């Protein structure tokens, strides 16, 4: 497999000695470009720890992670392959949060354009890219609005646009539908599937949300730090 994200034998241990806790135990995952998979499990099962490891926010204890065709972490070869994890997160990983967490003092366009700007692209090129994504997500008409002027669904679409801004090979979505009603939650899932397909991005959706679980074609169940893969219903979203 050349693209997407590939995780092999990933483990994470907090603490040491008698008080050590194994939050992740030999996790294996493989998500193809354009695929949206669900990561479900009860509270304390290790979902957030896995997300933080994938997001290069915390360092795993053991294992190997490949992003696209590039190994980004290998515990056998000294850990992270790049010293600049900030740049790795900025250029290669998109984040969608439970709450949109848009920057309140930037308008919608600049919230999306900020990432390409941080990556060194010109303001003009960054805003063009932002407007293109806002168009694709059907919020271009709110391009000049402040985040506080948007509805919850619009805010979440803008946050998805932001996650896609630097064309990352993977997006990590942390319960993106939790605050939304069924209709809006399904709308967000439809958008994520469209974007994954359109931009060939691998998307991992951490969720508890029973409304959206049937939409996944593949689901990783996580319990006590171990993942089990199973086929999902892959229900069409109308």
């Amino acid at each position, binding site marked *: 497999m050349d693209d997407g994200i590939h995780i092999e034998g990933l483990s994470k241990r907090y603490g040491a000695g008698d008080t050590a806790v194994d939050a992740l135990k030999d996790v294996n995952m493989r998500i193809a470009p354009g695929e949206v998979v669900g990561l479900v499990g009860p509270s304390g099962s290790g*979902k*957030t*720890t896995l*997300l*933080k490891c994938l*997001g290069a*926010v*915390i360092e795993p204890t053991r294992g190997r992670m490949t992003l696209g065709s590039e190994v980004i972490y290998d515990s056998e070869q000294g850990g992270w392959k790049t010293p600049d994890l*900030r*740049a790795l*997160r*900025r*250029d290669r990983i998109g*984040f969608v*949060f*439970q709450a949109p*967490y848009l*920057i*309140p*003092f*930037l308008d919608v366009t*600049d919230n999306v*354009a*900020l*990432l390409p*700007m*941080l*990556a060194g692209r010109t*303001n003009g090129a960054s805003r063009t890219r932002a407007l293109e994504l806002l168009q694709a997500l059907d919020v271009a008409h709110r391009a000049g609005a*402040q985040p506080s002027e948007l509805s919850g669904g619009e805010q979440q679409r803008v946050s998805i646009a*932001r996650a896609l801004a630097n064309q990352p090979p993977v997006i990590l979505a*942390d319960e993106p539908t939790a605050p939304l009603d069924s209709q809006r939650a399904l709308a967000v899932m439809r958008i994520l599937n469209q974007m994954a397909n359109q931009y060939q991005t691998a998307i991992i959706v951490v969720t508890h949300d029973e409304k959206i679980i049937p939409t996944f074609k593949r689901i990783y169940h996580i319990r006590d730090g171990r993942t089990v893969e199973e086929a999902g219903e892959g229900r069409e979203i109308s």
Partner: protein
Amino acid sequence: MISLAGRDILHSWGKFVLTGVGLGLLIGATLTMAGVYRGMVDDARVLLTNSGADIWVVQKDTQGPYAESSSIRDDVYRGLLGMPGVAQAANVTYLTMQVRHGARESRTMVVGFEQGQPGEPGYLVAGRRLLRGHFEAIADVKTGFKLGERIRIRRHDYEVVGLTRRMVSSGGDPMVFIPLKDAQEAQFLKDNDAIIADRARTAANPALNRPGVPGLLDAVTASQTINHSVNAVLVKVGAGDTAANVAQEIRRWKHVQAYTREQMEEILIEKLVATSAKQIGMFLAILTVVSAAIVAFIIYTMTLGKIREIAVLKLIGTRNRTIAGMILQQALGLGLIGFIVGKISATLWAPAFPKYVLLETADAMRALAIVMVVCALASTLAIRAALKVDPATAIGG
């Protein structure tokens, strides 16, 4: 790259501007304190310049009439006029007192001078110079007296015939100029009861009231009511002579103290104003610390209110220096708003102060630099808090 600080300021400009105005009033108070000190120093210099003297001749072992009591005979000037290098010499008296105008009183320094001699006010903003030998006065505009008004000094009424400006004592009291003879009388005049008692005591003294010496008692009584003292003699040095050399000669031959302009300026600024300067310096230091604390608190609070956004910014790859720059720019922006408001406020309210407030451009520039440095230092606490934010907190869990 867009300016995150600028956008944040624009987004919450109301809060930012109000905070800046509050800080500005504090900076305005700080600038005014500095202006008060500058005003005192300038008043001292103007006092010396307006006297038109090169040398102040005063009582031996005293520091002159501005600093302490000085009394010399009013004929000393005659001897001085005969000395080489002395072009002009004139008596002056200084007396700080309440001058009455109707029911109103004004605290002033009454100056007795000789017309056309050093000590006369250099210029008038209204009216004319003194033409009569008695009962005319020139007043500084700060006294509030108007041309043609009659003011009361001790037992006599004086007509205000001229007005001058920036003529104040080292204590900031506006001056009233009257003829020397009137001033001498006012300065040493006893009240009527005291004069009657003195005359009775003299008449009862057999040594001074001898039947065989007619006219002795009258002569003694007359000598008791005439004053022959002044506070200082102002000397102008002739062309080609230096004040230092002439002052040295005066000290050597006349048994009096003679100060040059530089020495008198030193007495006024280094000794008289020194305590006030220290007092103001303490205020300035306290106000600077308070301003720094306020900026630090405001920026820190504003930063804590953005912790989640900062975590998101860090998670999506914003560099620490970009975040630190955002906070620093906000602190500097706050300082700049504060400085502008402070400078405008100080300029507006300075004329309302009873004492002269001199706001110098150099002081303002120094204040701007200090404000910026203080704001930069004050922002370090908030920057530290922002840099400690873990990007993982944006993910939750």
